[in-house]
């Protein structure tokens, strides 16, 4: 059964230095508040996993929480580059960042394999590209039935997956809808999981297209209204496009970023 508690307690209990951590969300329902709590608690040497590392990963990388990033697209969506990410890759600032780079199809299938209890996934992917030459976790495989050459990628099984959802009931069953990304697979692939929600309600009334993660498949739930900002939670909030644009100059400049970091570290946790 998922335990309902505070964000600070959940992050403190679930995430340790050196863990493999996935904060998933495909531009919708991004668990930004949880990322800020990881920064506040000063976690180090994390292997961060995410298909689309955007602002919150730029922040975690700039804060020096990560030693490695496993990803398929790292940018500020609709704006441009992630400058803390670039500074880490190009200049090892504030600490060196190892990267393990995939395509979306590869990352999605790695989570599916992880959720399915399989060691690897098979896809038609990466063929002809330079990615297999720089990423050790992309290998050719021969179909045992047809002899066809395909591509294998290993399962992703994070120590902890963190996602944001619209709501949970008091038993810790989690309901989410709208763009679902790869969150269900990322939670089921992980050893432990944390779901921040907009609200905890008495009853999860049906919503078109919604999925439910049963309480027994989730480790902890924390109520964090607005916890996806500047991303959004369909039915609760709108994407703050201006914030994405405003992040660019902060991210470009180490000093501006340091000021931002000081403010986040001083915030009282949700």
């Amino acid at each position, binding site marked *: 059964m998922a335990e309902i508690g505070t964000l600070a307690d959940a992050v403190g209990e679930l995430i340790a230095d050196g863990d493999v951590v996935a904060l998933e969300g495909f531009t919708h329902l991004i668990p930004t508040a949880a990322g800020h709590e990881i920064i506040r608690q000063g976690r180090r040497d994390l292997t961060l996993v995410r298909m689309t590392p955007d602002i919150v990963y730029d922040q975690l990388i700039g804060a020096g929480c990560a030693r490695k990033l496993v990803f398929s697209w790292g940018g500020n969506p*609709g704006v441009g580059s992630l400058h803390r990410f670039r500074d880490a890759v*190009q200049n090892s600032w504030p600490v060196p960042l190892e990267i393990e780079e995939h395509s979306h199809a590869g990352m999605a299938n790695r989570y599916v394999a992880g959720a399915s209890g399989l060691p690897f996934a098979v896809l*038609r992917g990466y063929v002809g590209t*330079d990615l297999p030459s720089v990423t050790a976790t992309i290998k050719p495989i021969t179909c045992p039935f047809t002899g066809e050459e395909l591509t294998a990628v290993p399962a992703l099984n994070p120590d902890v997956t963190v996602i944001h959802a619209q709501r949970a009931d008091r038993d810790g069953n989690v309901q989410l809808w709208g763009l679902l990304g790869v969150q269900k697979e990322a939670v089921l692939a992980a050893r432990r999981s944390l779901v921040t929600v907009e609200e905890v309600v008495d009853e999860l009334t049906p919503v078109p297209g919604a999925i439910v993660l049963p309480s027994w498949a989730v480790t902890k739930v924390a109520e964090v209204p607005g916890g996806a900002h500047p991303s*959004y939670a*369909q039915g609760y909030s709108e994407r703050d*496009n201006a914030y*994405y644009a405003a992040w660019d100059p902060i991210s470009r400049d180490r000093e501006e970023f340091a000021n931002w970091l000081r403010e986040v570290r001083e915030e009282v946790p949700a």
Partner: protein
Amino acid sequence: MTYTSDEMMAVAAARALSGRQRVFVGIGLPSTAANLARRTHAPDLVLVYESGTLGSKPDRLPASIGDGILAETADAVISVPEVFNYWLQPGRIDVGFLGAAQLDRFGNINTTVIGGDYHHPKVRLPGAGGAPEIAASCREVYVVVRQTSRSFVERVDFVTSFGHGTGKGDRERLGLRGAGPTLVITDLGVFRPDPDTSELVLTDLHEGVALDDVRAATGWDVKVAPELGRTPPPTAEELSALRALKEASK
């Protein structure tokens, strides 16, 4: 009506789409063009976004691949594994509509690193996203890209998405099912692969662009089709639809 070269590019790219084509749409220039096509001559286009939407019908340009309007106006909203495994991989999509940071003579696309080596790049770009498999599995691929001698190069620094490799026959040898890039639209003109060599050849110049402009903005000795076409300038209807889409997204 006066117009910019970016507007000409968006209009030329929109005109390339038609009917009920199923289009896998990259964000940015491709999304602008695909939405313009749907708002003008091709209302029945099926727009597929990698965030997991089939048949999105936004009335403004989405701010990102995960803009809520893509889900709210879609025929179906699905997970990301599903969009790649069930819809893209088996060949259900007609056109992959992609952008590029760097594009080469054989239509290979780089969105990963520029300069230096992979581990010490001069510029670290966002990376692959969905593009490698879009370029592999769609029936054909259209690329829309602003053209400079730095973006249009003899050979990309990194092959993020495979075009025609080093020439004719490479895709077949690798077992890729789609035809790869069949059309490249820039702010200066239109390129298509030569049927014999798969090298990109200039087939059309946009109105007001000189051949020398294209040569200056191409990083290889560009070949020109024997019968060079002229892209008609944007119509008033196209321009006002494009500007309305952009205005609505502000």
